[in-house]
């Protein structure tokens, strides 16, 4: 009785696994955090993907040899949770027969998903996974479009060097792979540059009460705070820093302030800066695809909101994959991977080149970052690029 049940179950599962792709489509699978704490940033990335898909399909699809393939997405909600990501990517590969994968958003989830894509030998474009450790595990099919985590706060340190070379810095960061990697790399750089590290605290991703940490920041006498994590915790931290009147001269937070929603914090947002992979103001000359300005315009028309770097990253990463498939003239993972290895191009998202060293294969080595800051201009909060000098749209507010 039980055995029959098991067999029936097996049969039922086998039936459920009907392959879901037709001849002339390329299926790209991914998960997005439609719910959960990464929702804000992930949604932005998802919109970037969607805009790309619509653009490509409107132009007839991806050209492989003399055939054109329409792009089809299969995606699920990963609820911002690691545990869900593995199940879903396994399903994307084994049941939905996705030929290529986009990564989920955030380093932690990318690392988790990458294990599955590598186990099954599928190409995964990593978009929104900045932490470098993931790319040093001997992966062969994972390609990173973002600048690595260790370079995130180089700009902020540069600004501090200019404005206050003796600054006492408090590192307060989310305890997740990405933020931790950023903070630890920056801490070493800061020490080399002669700054004092006044405090180092990490907090769990679900933290909502920053009171105790902020008290410690105040006690430490720090002038500058570097850290944060993702949108939910970073915006809360900024708000509570403001509420508790922490007298900091400089605050750089990861990720959160890049979102247009950050402006909702009002006064608490003023002066807060964010390392950014991309801003609408950048002036890259792309080898193919839309220019940053065209992209921004199209994005705003479609979603009625300014694109952040997550959106541009989504579009840019997808373009790189399209480019490689077209150049390879094949959808065979080996051939496309070989093309990706040769990639050395500029898109609206900026330059892109992957490391081919087996020890760090797939790591992004060409893309660069900017530093943006929320400033009050004529009673309105605007996000200006303040670093590097050749890209700046406004002076630093210190």
């Amino acid at each position: 009785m039980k055995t029959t049940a098991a067999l029936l179950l097996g049969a039922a599962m086998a039936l459920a696994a009907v392959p879901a792709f037709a001849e002339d489509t390329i299926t790209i699978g991914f998960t997005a955090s439609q719910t959960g704490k990464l929702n804000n940033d992930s949604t932005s990335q998802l919109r970037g993907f969607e805009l790309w898909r619509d653009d490509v399909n409107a132009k007839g699809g991806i050209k492989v040899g003399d055939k054109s393939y329409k792009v089809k997405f299969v995606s699920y909600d990963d609820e911002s949770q690691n545990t869900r990501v593995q199940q879903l990517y396994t399903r994307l590969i084994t049941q939905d027969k996705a030929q290529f994968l986009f990564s989920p958003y955030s380093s932690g989830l990318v690392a988790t998903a990458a294990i599955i894509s590598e186990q099954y030998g599928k190409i995964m474009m990593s978009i929104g996974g900045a932490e470098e450790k993931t790319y040093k595990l001997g992966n062969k099919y994972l390609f990173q479009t973002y600048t690595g985590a260790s370079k995130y706060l180089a700009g902020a340190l540069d600004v501090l060097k200019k404005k206050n070379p003796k600054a006492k810095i408090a590192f307060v960061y989310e305890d997740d792979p990405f933020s931790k990697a950023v903070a630890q790399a920056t801490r070493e750089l800061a020490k080399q540059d002669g700054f004092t590290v006044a405090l180092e605290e990490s907090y769990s991703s679900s933290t909502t009460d920053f009171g105790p940490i902020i008290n410690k920041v105040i006690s430490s006498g720090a002038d500058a705070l570097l850290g944060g994590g993702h949108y939910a915790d970073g915006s809360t931290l900024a708000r509570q820093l403001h509420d508790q009147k922490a007298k900091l001269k400089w605050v750089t937070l990861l990720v959160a302030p890049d979102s247009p929603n950050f402006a909702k914090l009002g006064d608490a947002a003023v002066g807060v800066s964010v390392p950014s992979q991309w801003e609408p103001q950048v002036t890259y000359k792309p080898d193919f695809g839309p220019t940053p300005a065209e992209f921004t315009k199209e994005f705003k028309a479609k979603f009625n909101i300014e694109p952040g770097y997550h959106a541009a990253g989504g579009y840019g990463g997808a373009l790189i994959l399209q480019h490689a498939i077209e150049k390879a003239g094949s959808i065979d993972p080996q051939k496309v991977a070989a093309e990706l290895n040769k990639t050395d191009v500029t898109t609206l998202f900026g330059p892109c080149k992957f490391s081919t060293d087996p020890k760090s294969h797939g790591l992004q080595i060409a893309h660069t970052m900017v530093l943006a800051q929320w400033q009050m201009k004529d009673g309105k909060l605007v996000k200006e690029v303040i670093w590097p000098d050749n890209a700046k749209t406004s002076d630093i507010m210190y």
Partner: protein
Amino acid sequence: MTTSISHDVAKAGTFKPRKGWGEEIALQVRQPFPWLIAIFTLICALAPYVLDDVSLRESLLLAAVYVTLATNLNLMIGYAGYVNFGNIVFFGVGGYIGVYMATAWHVHIVLAALAGGICVSVLAYVFGRGILRLRGAFFALATIGVNEAIQAFVVNFEPWGGATGIYLSMDAYEPLGGPMNALWLCYYLIIAVMGLSLLLSYGIKKSKFGLAIMAIGQNEDAAAVLGVPTPKYKAIVYSISGFLPAVAGALYFFKSGIIEPTSAFDLTTSIEAIVMLMLGGAGTVTGPVIGAFLYEELRGYLLFSETFSHLQLVLAGVLLLLIVLFVPGGLMGFLRQRLPFVRRWLQ
């Protein structure tokens, strides 16, 4: 749970002439149930290979992990009557020890998993002597506390990667013949662990030790009066119930390639194991299997269905509530009550 209180307690208290292990096993081999377990395990192991179906393998693997968790939890809840709410801690700690040994010291995963199991069992025995002094809700709360405390500790424990956890390099699968082979190997091993869990559950149920444990579940004070060394026996069963989940944890997280505190010590999984147990029927050997498979299927269906994906939790909750209110014996309890022949064939 199936017989009357006085009957079980009386059986535990009376001394029968002691049978040797060999004799005991010889007796059980003539029973149909252990064979059913063996056949079931074999079918699970071979089905995905014969059908060459990777997604079936993935579903069965998850189901086997659930069966392992629910079956071992059954030893505590179904047999001993102690609600181990934080049972996932075994799985998590076993996983950490196993994955750590396999990555940092390059120990073969089978040995690493066994080591994880042994460590967890020893720890469970020591902790068990303390927290099993608590009864009822106090014990349930304490197990939650232990799980949370250990999670908080691991978050701060740098050798295990803190909150980030441990990532496996693809190289870790090389000694096993590459990732593909490693996945199959882990699958067979987890299925084996599932089979062992079922045999263990059956063996304990049929043993004198099991009778003593069930007597504790019915009426602990009466059992103590009749000569069952309750503190020791409780700690032993707590310790046993930790062994195979820990082994499964090591295999599962090795297969996943990543272990981090929030997924290793997820209280929700803990409670899901209880739900499966209740669904199938606590106190029986077959119940947790049926419960785990049904739950895995239901969850899988709801998660991927367009209409229900957001209501997955709601439906699971309604189901649980209905079981608790109307069918507290679970499916097996219900079947055994209605169909007498089930009682003879399924334990």
